[in-house]
């Protein structure tokens, strides 16, 4: 029975798998290969503003691979500082999301089912509303004459306004705020499926609450932690909107540098090279994320069949 459901006829099978695959190959894989190609091109004036890689002239094909972009990217200290800073900011953001998000997801999952639904909705709701507008909300709070500084001054805690807006700290706040639901939701999904009897067994065997947490709950929730951490870390590295709205001129992030190269300097090969380096740096976390997805998928499949 399973066989008929999952296979059909051989020719039909490709027809049924094919169309989404085709869309992704055409609009995801192919464009990325083009970026890779253009990252090796030379800047020129005209449309498009880059040189072709291979040229047929006098019956000879000349292949020109320019390494200008990459040479600059790996030697210029500003670019190197940008990579390191992007990774650092994304890592700190992920850690903060974990520290805030894990207890939240844990307590939501362990709530009474009727309350749980409401609490979960509370995490999902910001996810549905506009990220742009939610980040914008922080501008009014963090400015020197903003709500936070007014409140602190009114309470008499500070006499001079704190400089937060247009600093790295503001970017951290914005990133954690924007990505927190992405950590909580997949983690909640694993925690809610956790078999309570395992914890009870640990307690019966005399484990203290913290011991039970570290040797039962935490290891079993690792797939959720990994999925959440990757959903926060990978997009944060290339984030553009948040550093642009909350960060200062010296908040170095890759998404921003790439944006500047492309829109302000119109240097497409350079922007393409920055993009390629960004994807290369994200390759390891991407593979971890995909591996984790596939493993979870197979486990679920094992359960349902």
């Amino acid at each position, binding site marked *: 029975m399973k066989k008929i459901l999952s296979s059909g006829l051989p020719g039909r099978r490709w027809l049924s798998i094919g169309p989404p695959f085709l869309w992704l190959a055409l609009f995801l894989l192919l464009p990325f290969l083009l970026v890779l190609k253009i990252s090796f091109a030379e800047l020129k004036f005209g449309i498009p503003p880059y040189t072709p890689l291979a040229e047929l002239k006098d019956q000879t094909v000349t292949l020109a691979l320019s390494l200008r972009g990459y040479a600059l990217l790996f030697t210029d200290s500003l670019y190197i500082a940008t990579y390191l800073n992007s990774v650092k900011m994304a890592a700190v953001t992920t850690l903060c999301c974990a520290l805030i998000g894990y207890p*939240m997801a844990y307590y939501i999952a*362990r709530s009474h089912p009727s309350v749980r639904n409401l609490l979960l*909705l509370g995490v999902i709701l910001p996810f549905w509303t506009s990220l742009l507008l939610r980040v914008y909300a922080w501008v009014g709070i963090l400015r020197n004459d903003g709500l936070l500084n007014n409140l602190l001054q009114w309470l008499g805690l500070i006499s001079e306004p704190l400089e937060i807006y247009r600093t790295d700290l503001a970017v951290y706040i914005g990133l954690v705020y924007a990505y927190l639901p992405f950590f909580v939701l997949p983690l909640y999904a694993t925690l809610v499926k956790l078999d309570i009897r395992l914890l009870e067994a640990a307690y019966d065997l005399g484990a203290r609450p913290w011991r039970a947490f570290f040797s039962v709950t935490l290891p079993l929730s690792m797939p959720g932690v990994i999925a959440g951490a990757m959903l926060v870390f990978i997009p944060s590295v290339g984030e553009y909107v948040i550093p642009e709205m909350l960060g200062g001129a010296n908040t170095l992030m890759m998404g921003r540098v790439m944006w500047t190269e492309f829109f302000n300097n119109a240097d497409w090969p350079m922007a393409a090279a920055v993009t390629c380096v960004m994807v290369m740096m994200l390759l390891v976390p991407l593979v971890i994320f995909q591996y984790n997805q596939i493993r979870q998928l197979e486990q679920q499949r094992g359960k*349902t069949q």
Partner: protein
Amino acid sequence: MTRPHPVLRATVLALGYAFLYIPILCLMAFSFNDSSMMTSWTGFSLKWYVELFNDQALLSAARLSLLIAALTATAAVAIGTWAGYVLARMGRFRGFALYIGMVSAPLVMPEVVLGISLLLMFVEISQLFGWPSGNGIFTIWVGHVTLCMAYVAVIIQSRIRELDRSLEEAALDLGATPLKVFFVITLPLILPALMAAWLLAFTLSLDDVVIASFLSGPGYTTLPLEVFSRVRLGLKPEINALATLFMLTVGIFVVVANRMQWRKGQA
């Protein structure tokens, strides 16, 4: 013994939700402020809402965005459901890892990567074939569908996996073709998930700044592009009014849909 500590639990949740909601509530409160500064309260006023509805640039951007979002959501649900069904039901086939990799890549891939790569491709294509002659609704739509179909696929595949397989198997045993089984049995069962996925794709498209920046052309300013170009330099009170309306609409929608689904689950 296995129940969590009530005080600790209440504190953690209160702080977490305060962090998530205080900025939104501040934004909403100050949309009714008389002064243009979001720093002190000078009096209740609806003038920013009046200004919002007289702002032709914002209104036409909103119309364009709603159109693109509707087109995106519809296509993303069609392709994403297909991809989700393949992931949930088709077993392991050659290239499965690549398939799942490509479907879930847009979930995490920084949007700047998706934006620039699609733009470069459209430039190459129009060099080769003279089409598309300029960026606009079509190019933005392609970018948004590629992003949104990943979210749709994830929602749909987890929903399909929860389904009781015996219904589909019974229909097959009674002689229905797999295609008919999908449309007559599977599709009606996942209808609520389809609607949720459509709405999510709609709001994702309505919110996107980065992909649209790369893929829009002159004369095609979407709402987030218009909003972003105004707020990147500071506070704009008419945007507070817009944000309040947007968030209230989405909020009411999500809460009502959730209540309906929850009640159905209880019955």
